[in-house]
């Protein structure tokens, strides 16, 4: 199928997997990623192996990215967006790309710019496939907002930073589109758990980043070793008040596997789970779960609220699942297992891209004859392995569509 071209919107694990599958059929693929880094949310997750692999799939994301980077049929655009998409014998759109202000060939990852930036606008990558490894967040950068700050550019010993690089626009066309725009993490600030007010209340995504940053025990920001940790499941999922009538599916796995890793690193830690129903994790869940039940406290109760004591420890109020009486427990750290919410709708192309959604607001992944397909968590909560499968499935639908339109 020579000379056909597919645009994949979103460079997470689903987008990359779809592109790789399509490339095997000699199709040319452009992947458009809005952030500076490819790999989506999943590439920031930790490997949660203890003495053996726990099959979280985090390493698969890395593998997909490295394969995509080497694939001559795949072009990867980061810091990019599409606008003004129209359908007329194929798809036509403008691709806007904000350049990376950091030159990957010059940057030596010395990290001086991190200290120089007054706004903390320099972000670092998480994968060896992230080029450049340092990137500038235009939302935070003063220079991007017409302010006269050039601290990083002046201070960079390698002259790798160019703040004046211009945004470019290019007219593009393609024969099919795959929406792999991923999920929006639930923002737990509206829940009564003190997120952003209490520094020891963190999300499971933040916990994963902490876990991959060190191989030692888990520490609070004050430098204390965490001895007592709680996980609150279903924050922003299975929540009728929010009208979030879905299970986010990955959080039980993330929390249970993270807890096992923490316990493996510091065996005397006390772990408590607040939950509604524990969902299956991996292929051998019975064994995995009975092991966890022997090690952790399981409270079938969703806490009402959290307060911070004078010592910085967190008091969690909940209904005891055995007596149904109000109870209070104190933890050094509380992890909120936040839900996966529908992706942000693409702006500026409502007319052309028919983004039919499910009742929950995710993109419907049913077969389309329009040439627009969807893959990964944009279509509903799912884990890494299923995102890959969903992407390959969407790639097949795309190939069939291209065959039909060729005939």
């Amino acid at each position: 199928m020579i000379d056909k071209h597919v645009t994949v919107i979103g460079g997470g694990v689903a987008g990359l997997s779809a592109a790789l599958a399509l490339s095997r059929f000699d199709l040319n693929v452009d992947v458009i990623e809005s952030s500076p880094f490819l790999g989506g949310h999943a590439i920031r997750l930790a490997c949660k192996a203890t003495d053996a692999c726990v099959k979280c799939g985090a390493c698969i994301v890395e593998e997909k990215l490295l394969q995509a980077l080497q694939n001559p049929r795949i072009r990867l655009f980061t810091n990019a967006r599409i606008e003004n998409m129209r359908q007329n014998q194929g798809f036509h759109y403008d691709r806007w790309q904000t350049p990376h202000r950091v030159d990957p060939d010059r940057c030596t990852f010395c990290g001086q710019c991190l200290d120089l930036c007054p706004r903390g606008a320099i972000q670092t990558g998480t994968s060896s496939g992230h080029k450049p490894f340092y990137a500038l967040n235009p939302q935070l950068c003063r220079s991007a907002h017409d302010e006269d700050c050039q601290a990083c550019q002046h201070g960079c010993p390698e002259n790798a930073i160019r703040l004046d690089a211009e945004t470019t626009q290019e007219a593009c066309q393609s024969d099919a589109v795959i929406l792999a725009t991923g999920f929006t993490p639930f923002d737990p600030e509206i829940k009564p758990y003190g997120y952003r007010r209490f520094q020891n209340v963190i999300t499971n995504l933040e916990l994963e980043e902490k876990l991959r940053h060190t191989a030692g025990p888990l520490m609070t920001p004050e430098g204390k070793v965490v001895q007592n940790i709680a996980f609150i499941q279903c924050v922003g999922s299975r929540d009728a008040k929010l009208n979030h009538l879905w299970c986010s599916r990955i959080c039980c796995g993330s929390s249970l596997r993270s807890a096992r890793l923490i316990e493996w690193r510091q065996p005397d830690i006390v772990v408590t789970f607040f939950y509604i129903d524990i969902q299956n994790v991996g292929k051998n869940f019975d064994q995995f779960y009975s092991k966890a039940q022997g090690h952790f406290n399981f409270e079938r109760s969703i806490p009402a609220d959290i307060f911070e004591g004078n010592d910085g420890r967190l008091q969690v109020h909940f209904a005891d699942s055995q007596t149904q009486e109000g109870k209070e427990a104190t933890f050094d750290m509380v992890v909120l297992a936040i839900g996966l919410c529908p992706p942000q709708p693409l702006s500026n192309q409502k007319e052309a891209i028919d983004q039919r959604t499910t009742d929950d607001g995710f993109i419907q992944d049913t077969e389309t004859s329009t040439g627009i397909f969807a893959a990964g968590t944009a279509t509903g909560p799912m884990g890494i392995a299923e995102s890959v499968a969903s992407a390959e499935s969407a790639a097949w639908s795309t190939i069939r569509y291209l065959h039909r339109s060729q005939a």
Partner: protein
Amino acid sequence: MSAKILLIGNNTLTAGIAQDLINSDIDLVLATPVDKTDLSPDLVDVARKNQGLELLTQSRVSACRGSVGHFTVQVTTGQQVQSLEISQVVIAEDAHQHIDYSAHGLHPAASIVSLDEIEKVISTDTEIESIDNQAQTLVFLIGLKRETTPENTRRAMIAAQNCQKAGKRAYILTGNLKVGDQGLEQLYRQARAAGIIFIKFSHTHPRLRMDKQDQVTIEFDDEIAGRPFRLSPDLTVLDEMAQPTSYLQDLIRIFELETDPSGFTQADNVHRIGVGTNRAGILVAGPARNVTSQREHLMDMHIVALKGSMPIEPSSPESQAWAEIDLGSCIRCLTCHRLCPYSAVEVNTSIRIQPRACEACGLCAAECPREAIQVSGIEGFNMDARMPEPKGPNNGADYMPTIFAFCCSRSAFPAGRLAECLNPAMPMGLKTIAIPCAGSLSLNHLLTGFRSGADGILVLTCHTDNCHARYGNQRACERAAMLQDQFAEIGFDKDRLQVGTLAANMGMAFIEIVFEFEKRLRELGPSGLRSQQ
């Protein structure tokens, strides 16, 4: 080379796969042990629509030789045996649904039915009446003694709602309600609104009894109300658990497939996600790999069609590597044949490694007692030629240990690259060497490393159960341990050889391992082998 696909199965998924492959102009032969009259209606439909479809009923696969692109599969139909030339195999066989009466202290009786049986009587609205009219109260026991699946939970909730519609009273007793699939939380809310009573158990269990008339009595303390309750259902519905059928077990043996802990066709290894197995050209779908939901079946169907119509040859042949046996040195010990995790070593009158099935892990090359196997296509796989030059002072105050880190190209090597981004000041004496799999390192490689000037060698491999080559990491650990024992005997410090496990995203852990190792080598001083050269 034949381009024919052999499809094994007899269900809706098999029919879907068949139609999808036919639509893609792929030559197909379908084989199932069942009789024509027992064919799935969907399959009958596909056969009617596609008159040319080669459909072998009452036919079992009895043997298989060869590898992807040219399997020779023996199919037995009654007394007749035929050989088929096949390019790829797809297994979509059903699983056996096991009902565990004894786990609940029950035995088979008219008052107890399975999820499947209740579904059959209530599958259509008109048939609801055919449920035993005496049966007024139904209790579903789902995921109580064992964890269940979201699919069984979905089925129970739909069946319970249908019972409720027919004027029955339905209870669902469960441990963890498995709502981890699309639409299930909504279905749960609907079911509750329809009046179905859900009772969940977390730290207590219901007590089940069966009297002489097979009447089931269920007693429990409700965990929320804290009060004792008793149910005497007219009909008790039990959860099912999927198990591989004996035919599926035969297929696993015939096709030399790795299995998961429950004995299904796909190992519990992240490198086998999707419909892949340890063997190139053998795909497994749906119940054969123990996935149950319709959504997953649809995805499997698409992925099988995708992989089935993918060109088997990679688009750039020069990038492909594989192992080759020098038949002049080979003594036919068959070590490689027994060891190959991908069953890529074919033994006929001659012995040969099939390039398309070979994943170039190098396990065979490392283990071959005659060193008769080379992995071609990997630049300089010959390790002697790849040993880097040691750099930095060999002794004194500025002593900088030379470290060779042999890194698995899938895990530790990218971790090492990430480490360089995170901490540009890695030890000066560190040399990172990518290898296809840690299992490809022979004792000779390690010894050559020390001879070439390494003060210490790190073997960095994948975590247990994460090796693409199944047990390459384990082989590497065993080999290193063996060498460490020998070092201890000859008085060479065994700390100079260390094994670590890493994933591709563990840059920080890579840094910690390397610095820790360098510290130890500084304590030990130069190995002394370099100066003797």
